[in-house]
């Protein structure tokens, strides 16, 4: 049930009712509620025109307006001395020092991927790139976080391989490396695959461009691909007199990506920025022209006159509503001083990018849209974005949480540890993702110092001493068991991951993937998640500079696990000359565990899921003090060059983390634990280090100085992974472990 906020007054505006036996009124067909219709009447002071309804319907959609989530997102800390642009523009921007800026954004493309995985994922990449280069930055790296149902189901295999192919095709062809990401498989994603993508861009401080329309007289130029009916009904919604969904396959036109067009657009735009030829620029994403005209105008406090007949199109006969709703890809709206229009068109021509002059900025706040001489829409520009409804959705703790928390297995005797380790390594959510990332170009631009397959990506900035680290982390299972604790732990995990390659955490972007917001329990999960992320960011002093919310990930009444994905950017200056990696452990090195050793909490562990198919218990709360100590300890180890190998202990816990080092380094290990559960518990703020035994004292000193417990728990040697525990031992040959780990995903796809 939606509860309208107080500032929308619902007078007795006339809301059209369906004729008996006739089609639904237009506003409902477009997805607007009757209350929203009344709000539009109040804003306009009259009945809306069809094209106006079309604009409101797309701009006030959940995806564009954040109407269910905005009331909560204000909780995030967004400020820090190094934040140049916070949430609200197309990407967050932070200052890296010495005149360098980084732009950062994360986005989801979940529902289109379910319909057509290749193009859905591909156009997701296109969209996130535009969000970054619309800020003036060259996109330099991508990360994707993809989640599917289990691979034993053919449909999930199809979605998974289609998604990876689509990301590979678009990312490689457009020429931006994909340097890391996450792959996970859970039953709840079977009907709702998740595709989140994150992008980093770099620019000099004087290259920053905002999404502003500028002053009256500024000219609006539409650049890029011709507009078609992508993303909207094949037949004009308005033209259909009799509306019968079941007749024929009038599916919305699937958006098809064109990475070549995008590449040309990137180069053309970067040249425009370098030469100072634009006043502002906005990408056309969801809500296409409606958004790219209204938002820049609203930001500048101006109005606009738009001429639809000037838009370059690839299909004839498009109605105004279609032109305003179209989600054709690879388009940008540049706002240009009249003196520079010819130069801009010349740049576009040189890069073989189509361009059309579609509008002019005026004073006042009205957005007036014409088709030829006919005025087809006239609305206050700000009303489309700022006056979108905000829903205070009902929220309530699910009745099942207590039961979930008390549903622990209470295991006493260990299962066969050798077999358990191999099963964990064989789990597609834990196993090597090489099958995925070897399809992505991760080396282009010669910046990738630490690429896919490690805890974080590390990129250099040529010509400087700086390095940028990025980690992306999600864990639906953990967040299902406790959204607040789970989400906070993800932030701490991401911060630790960037610290493990010598970078200090600097900014967060978050992608919040949830089920149906009309359910109180989903909104409760959402609120708790936001609180958890906010708490952790505040404790770390790291601002949230942007994010994305995806609701309605629900099929047949079943919601996905609450799945926040945290993207963390860290800055290393100077970048360590030899950053820690997983593959540098050698025979004779010590294995250290940093963090609480005696923690035992199997709730949400991969161990319980993989071994028993069990999900239950309450995950441990994070410890902000310990979290910060872990980050400081990691940074010190890196700056003092004490640890050729650093690895965080997360999914799959200690057993898996140790095995991963052995597999990457091709060396065995022997370690001893006092309780078998130490191998599988997934408590936070823990990491492993492989160090030279001669450095033991210095390593211990780093831990003590940082205030985090640490001690050597084993030694790298031989060709076997040996775990000793009271009354039992596990022995797994490294080669066997490696084969299992590498084959887990490919063998399920044959």
């Amino acid at each position, binding site marked *: 049930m939606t509860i309208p906020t107080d500032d929308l007054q619902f007078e007795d505006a006339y809301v059209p009712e369906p004729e008996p036996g006739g089609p639904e009124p237009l506003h409902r067909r477009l997805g607007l509620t009757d209350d929203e219709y009344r709000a539009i009447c109040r804003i306009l002071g009259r009945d809306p025109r069809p094209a106006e309804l079309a604009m409101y319907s797309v701009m006030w959609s959940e995806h564009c307006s954040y109407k269910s989530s905005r009331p909560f997102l204000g909780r995030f800390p967004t400020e820090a001395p190094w934040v140049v642009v916070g949430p609200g523009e197309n990407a967050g921007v932070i200052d890296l020092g010495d005149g360098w800026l980084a732009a950062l954004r994360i986005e989801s493309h979940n529902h289109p991927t379910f319909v057509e995985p290749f193009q859905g994922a591909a156009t997701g990449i296109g969209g996130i790139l535009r969000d970054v280069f619309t800020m003036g930055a060259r996109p330099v790296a991508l990360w994707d976080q993809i989640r599917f149902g289990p691979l034993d189901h053919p449909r999930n295999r199809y979605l998974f391989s289609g998604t990876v192919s689509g990301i590979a095709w678009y990312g490689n062809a457009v020429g931006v490396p994909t340097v890391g990401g996450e792959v996970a498989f859970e039953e709840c994603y079977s009907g709702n695959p998740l595709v989140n993508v994150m992008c980093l861009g770099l620019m000099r401080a004087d290259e920053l461009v905002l999404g502003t329309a500028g002053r009256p007289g500024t000219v609006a130029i539409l650049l890029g691909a011709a507009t078609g009916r992508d993303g909207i009904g094949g037949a004009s919604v308005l033209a259909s007199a009799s509306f019968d969904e079941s007749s024929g396959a009038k599916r919305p036109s699937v958006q098809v990506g*064109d990475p070549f067009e995008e590449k040309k657009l990137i180069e053309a735009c970067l040249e425009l920025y370098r030469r100072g030829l634009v006043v502002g620029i906005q990408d056309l994403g969801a809500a296409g022209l409606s958004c790219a005209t209204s938002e820049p105008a609203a930001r500048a406090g101006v109005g606009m006159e738009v001429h639809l007949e000037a838009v370059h199109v*690839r299909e004839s006969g498009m109605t105004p509503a279609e032109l305003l709703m179209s989600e054709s890809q690879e388009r940008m709206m540049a706002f240009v001083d009249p003196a520079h229009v010819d130069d801009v068109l010349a740049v576009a021509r040189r890069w073989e990018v189509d361009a059309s002059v579609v509008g002019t900025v005026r004073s006042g706040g009205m957005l007036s849209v014409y088709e030829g001489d006919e005025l087809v829409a006239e609305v206050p520009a700000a009303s489309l974005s700022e006056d979108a409804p905000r829903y205070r959705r009902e929220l309530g703790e699910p009745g099942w949480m207590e039961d979930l928390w008390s549903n622990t297995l209470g295991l006493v005797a260990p299962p066969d540890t050798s077999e358990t380790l191999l099963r964990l390594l064989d789990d597609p959510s834990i196993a090597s993702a090489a099958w995925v990332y070897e399809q992505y170009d991760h080396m282009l631009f010669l910046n990738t110092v630490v690429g896919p397959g490690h805890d974080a990506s590390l990129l250099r900035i040529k010509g400087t001493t700086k390095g940028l680290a990025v980690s992306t982390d999600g864990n639906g299972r953990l967040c299902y068991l406790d959204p607040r604790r789970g989400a906070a732990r993800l932030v701490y995990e991401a911060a630790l991951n960037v610290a493990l390659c010598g970078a200090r955490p600097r900014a967060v972007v978050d992608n919040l993937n949830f089920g149906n917001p009309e359910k109180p329990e989903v909104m409760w999960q959402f609120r708790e998640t936001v609180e958890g992320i906010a708490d952790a960011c505040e404790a770390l002093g790291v601002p949230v500079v942007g994010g994305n919310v995806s609701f309605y990930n629900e099929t047949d009444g079943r919601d996905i696990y609450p799945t926040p994905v945290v993207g963390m950017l860290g800055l290393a200056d100077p970048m360590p000359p030899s950053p820690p990696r997983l593959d540098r452990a050698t025979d004779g090195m010590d294995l250290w565990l940093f963090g609480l050793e005696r923690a035992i909490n199997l709730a949400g562990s991969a161990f319980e899921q993989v071994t028993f198919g069990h999900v239950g218990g309450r995950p441990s709360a994070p410890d902000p003090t310990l979290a910060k100590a872990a980050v400081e300890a990691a940074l010190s180890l890196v700056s003092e060059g004490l640890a050729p190998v650093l690895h965080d202990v997360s999914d799959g816990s200690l057993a898996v983390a140790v095995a991963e080092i052995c597999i990457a380094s091709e060396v065995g290990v022997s370690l001893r634990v006092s309780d078998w559960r130490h191998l599988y518990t997934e408590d936070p703020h823990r990491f492993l280090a492989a160090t030279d035994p001669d450095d033991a004292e210095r390593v211990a000193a780093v831990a003590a100085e940082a205030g985090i417990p640490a001690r050597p728990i084993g030694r790298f040697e031989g060709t076997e992974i040996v775990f000793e525990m009271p009354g039992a031992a596990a022995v797994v040959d490294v080669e066997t472990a490696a084969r299992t780990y590498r084959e887990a995903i490919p063998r399920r796809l044959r």
Partner: protein
Amino acid sequence: MKVTVNIVRRPDVADPQGATVARALHDLGHASVRSVRVDRAIHLEVDGDDPEAVRAEVVRMCEELLANPVLEDFEVVVEE
């Protein structure tokens, strides 16, 4: 029997490849080209004497595998 399946992108779906090829043809001097669409043809040899039965089976193949209904239409041509 010889069967040709023409897999054709649905007309309302973008064809960037076609657009790029059209541009290239113009650059080569072929100003007369108005539009280009790039599609696929699949050639099968199928056992059977009855053209209608063969056609029906190939239509099923298209629905199951050969065409992606989200993006493509198909046409089955059975050589008599």
